[in-house]
């Protein structure tokens, strides 16, 4: 294993006084060992069944008919009267077929399940009609006999010009930033970040089947079974029991299967209900790229006031995110963006004004990092610009500014434990060799190195966990095995394996005696969505607590036994939603990333050659899985920073095919080296903190700093495409 591991000996983390006991414990425990993943064998043999792999007898195929204009109203929907629309051939669903509310339940009730005749269209690819047929050719044929006419309206594509605001957030710390005294240098700069597609390799899909009790069972590719359950109940007017949601093996999510699967599931369910038979609604890649959510693009502007010696006096930050046509999760994305906007730095006076607006593009939504990569990109480059202006090293400036134990964040949160800014910075710096020279045979290549330091709040923001109160259950069965029941999904990150490790150690049994119940809402309690770097840390802790309680009860009682554990907010955490003051997150994870790039100054091509990232995960429950999260997240960030560009045309995505939307291949990927630093968190399971999203934050600013190091030009916008690099080089004074 290429990973170096640092163990930080904080409070109570020292070696046991009895080394033999320590060794013995280590030998029998699962936590901290890279045990084979639970779903490994089925995935390497092709036996794992993803949604589209499932055989459902008598199922028809479904299709979604979508808007072709970005804004307007539907004047008419006309079915060709000469075509055979008989229900034995084809089933058509319109907004009038929705038994419940015509709303995809989430934060705001603005997004319809289907736009209705006379109704508003707010973006291209907005669902209007649904079709089902026994075979795909009938489906395509029927679709060609439908005519939808619109009354177009003037679309809004520029967020700066948008009049409809989804949400605003203001964070204030200290004094009025523009009235701070003693400021000697002010640096101002704006940064622009682009759309990004999650690009899970398995497209969205769901199969819905009517059940004898008038309900619907949906099996699909999804991250959050209970989000889908709630949305299904509401749109189809079903009871808790009538709506059943089951997760199939899921081929990647990255946030892209947080909210959108509710839409797919409702559509499949409406078709199944009307057809009276199962319906498969599986998107192809083109539809998935064209219609589903993307990372929010945005513009972030900083004004930073310092003394000449680098002392940070104020940060004044404006954030503008483009939410697209419907609200989806935009307010929560904006919240995370705003809270992370000042970076991992201690500043006495901060003002963050954040705004997310509506435009007429397809809605933007959840994507790993959830607003933080956008605002941290700006924060990290701002450190570079201030350092450059002051003529000091940006690493030294970070050391001067960075949050340390006892410091307070922009929301006034006092950091009382597991603060690792210096640990990750030192570990990353120590790990990199000097930048090797470029070969003389490549005269147009310039080589450079850049660094970033980031933090990422683990778990839901503010009172999110308290409101949700996620629940897990555990059963001790008569045969001596134990079953973990949660709605937390395995989407590749290793949920099933880690939960078994945590339970096995808390129970004091081998992992082979622990199983995980299927993610089926008729079987498992709502442990919350699989998002926000919360699964290992928040739900994992509940699994550990349930196992501990079962162990205690088994001393007095006999199996079978069932225990439930729900999240209880620690008394020490306080958050005020109205003022944005308080403990924004239970804990933060930290990372320092160093990127090496080669820039070809004749073509503008940027190649990230090496990436070293030191990550404080509290405790690596499973080092190989933890490294996997870091490496995968880093490469997604490399893509976002360099090649993943979505070109817009008339409110739609021009490159909505995999042939034109490029993600990094094995040839594009840098050598990624992960250093896991373990600075334990007292309330995490065995000290662990959530790190699923953190690796998305650091690479982009490090890469832009490296491009500057290589070429002397600063890019203020990502992705750093050859066009942008060439343009920046052309502007550079000779």
């Amino acid at each position, binding site marked *: 294993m290429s990973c170096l591991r640092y163990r930080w000996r904080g409070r109570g983390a020292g070696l046991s006084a009895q080394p033999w006991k320590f060794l013995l414990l280590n030998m029998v425990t699962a936590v901290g060992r890279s045990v084979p*993943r639970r779903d*490994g064998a089925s995935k390497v043999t092709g036996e794992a069944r993803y949604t589209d792999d499932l055989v459902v007898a008598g199922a028809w195929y479904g299709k979604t008919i979508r808007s072709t204009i970005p804004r307007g109203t539907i004047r008419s929907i006309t079915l060709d009267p000469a075509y055979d629309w008989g229900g034995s051939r084809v089933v058509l669903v319109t907004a009038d077929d929705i038994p419940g509310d015509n709303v995809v339940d989430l934060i705001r009730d603005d997004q319809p399940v289907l736009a209705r005749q006379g109704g508003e269209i707010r973006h291209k690819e907005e669902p209007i009609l649904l079709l089902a047929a026994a075979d795909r050719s009938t489906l395509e044929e029927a679709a060609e006999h439908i005519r939808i006419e619109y009354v177009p309206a003037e679309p809004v594509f520029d967020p700066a010009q948008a009049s409809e605001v989804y949400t605003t957030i203001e964070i204030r710390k200290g004094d009025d930033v523009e009235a701070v005294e003693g400021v000697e240098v002010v640096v101002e700069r704006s940064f622009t970040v682009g759309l990004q597609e999650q690009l899970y390799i398995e497209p969205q899909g769901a199969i819905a089947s009517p059940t004898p009790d008038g309900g619907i069972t949906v099996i699909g590719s999804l991250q959050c079974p209970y989000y889908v359950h709630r949305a299904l109940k509401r749109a189809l007017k079903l009871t808790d029991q009538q709506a059943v949601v089951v997760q199939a093996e899921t*081929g990647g999510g990255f946030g892209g299967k947080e909210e959108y699967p509710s839409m797919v599931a409702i559509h499949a369910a409406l078709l199944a209900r009307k057809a009276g038979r199962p319906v498969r609604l599986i998107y192809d890649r083109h539809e998935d790229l064209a219609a589903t959510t993307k990372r929010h693009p945005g513009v972030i502007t900083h004004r930073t006031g310092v003394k000449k010696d680098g002392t940070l006096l104020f940060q004044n930050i404006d954030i503008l995110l483009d939410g697209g046509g419907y609200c989806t999760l935009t307010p929560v994305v904006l919240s995370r963006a705003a809270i992370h906007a000042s970076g991992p730095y201690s500043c006495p006076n901060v003002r963050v004004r954040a705004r997310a607006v509506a435009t007429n593009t397809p809605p933007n939504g959840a994507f790993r990092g959830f607003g933080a990569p956008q605002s941290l990109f700006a924060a990290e480059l701002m450190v570079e610009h201030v350092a450059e202006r002051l003529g000091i090293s940006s690493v030294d400036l970070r050391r001067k500014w960075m949050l340390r134990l006892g410091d307070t964040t922009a929301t006034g949160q006092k950091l009382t434990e597991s603060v690792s800014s210096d640990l990750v910075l030192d570990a990353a710096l120590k790990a990199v060799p000097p930048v090797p020279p470029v070969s003389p045979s490549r005269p147009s290549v310039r080589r450079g190195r850049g660094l970033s330091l980031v933090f990422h709040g683990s778990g839901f923001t503010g009172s999110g966990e308290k409101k949700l109160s996620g629940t897990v259950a555990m059963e001790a069965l008569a045969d001596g095995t134990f079953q973990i029941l949660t709605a937390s999904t395995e989407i590749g990150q290793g949920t099933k394996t880690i939960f078994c490790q945590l339970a096995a150690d808390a129970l004091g049994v081998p992992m082979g005696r622990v199983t995980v119940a299927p993610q089926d809402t008729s079987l498992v309690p709502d442990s919350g969505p699989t998002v926000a770097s919360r699964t290992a840390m928040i739900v994992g802790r509940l699994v550990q607590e349930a196992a501990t309680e079962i162990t205690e009860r088994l001393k007095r009682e006999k199996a079978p036994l069932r225990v439930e554990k729900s999240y209880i907010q620690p008394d020490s955490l306080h958050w005020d939603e109205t003022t944005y003051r308080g403990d924004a997150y239970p804990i933060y994870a930290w990372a320092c990333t160093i990127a090496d790039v080669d820039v070809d100054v004749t073509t503008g091509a940027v190649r990230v050659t090496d990436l070293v990232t030191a990550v404080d995960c509290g405790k690596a429950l499973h080092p190989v899985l933890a490294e996997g999260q870091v490496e995968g997240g880093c490469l997604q960030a490399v893509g976002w920073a360099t090649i993943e560009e979505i070109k817009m045309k008339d409110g739609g995505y021009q490159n909505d095919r995999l042939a034109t939307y490029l993600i990094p291949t094995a040839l594009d990927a840098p050598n990624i080296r992960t250093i896991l630093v373990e600075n334990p968190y007292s309330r995490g399971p065995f000290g662990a903190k959530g790190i699923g999203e953190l690796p998305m934050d650091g690479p982009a600013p490090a890469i832009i700093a490296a491009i500057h190091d290589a070429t002397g030009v600063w890019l203020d916008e990502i992705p750093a495409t050859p066009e942008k690099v060439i343009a920046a080089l052309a502007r550079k004074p000779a």
Partner: protein
Amino acid sequence: MVQFTLNGRRVSFEGSGSRRLLDVLREDFRATGTKEGCGEGECGACSVLIDGDVVDSCLVAVGQVEGRDVLTIEGLSSPLQQAFIEHGAAQCGICTPGMLLAAHVLLQRTTRPSADDVREALAGNLCRCTGYTKIIEAVLSCGT
């Protein structure tokens, strides 16, 4: 009728020879380990081996495999599979079958590949989970 060898077994397919090999494998032979990720030969999730070469089965009409030897993940038995588990090379697993088949061909042709050889051989198979690091490690561990 199209006759070919599928995972070492002679099979025949009665139907249109223009159907995509991917669909015939998945729907008619239930070899669902072969995945559709893009349908246009970009992602490699539908990779199969035809006479030992890696091919995107979404771009092949079933009629083209008449008399040929088709290997899917269901027919693979390689130390690579265990190595993928041990090294953490499979996360969500959707690219894994295609990735394994492409790596298998590399190891058949190059007993001791370099990391660059591995990158080159797997460049037609997209993975969004791993950053490729652990996949490359797993393949290198199987070089003799």
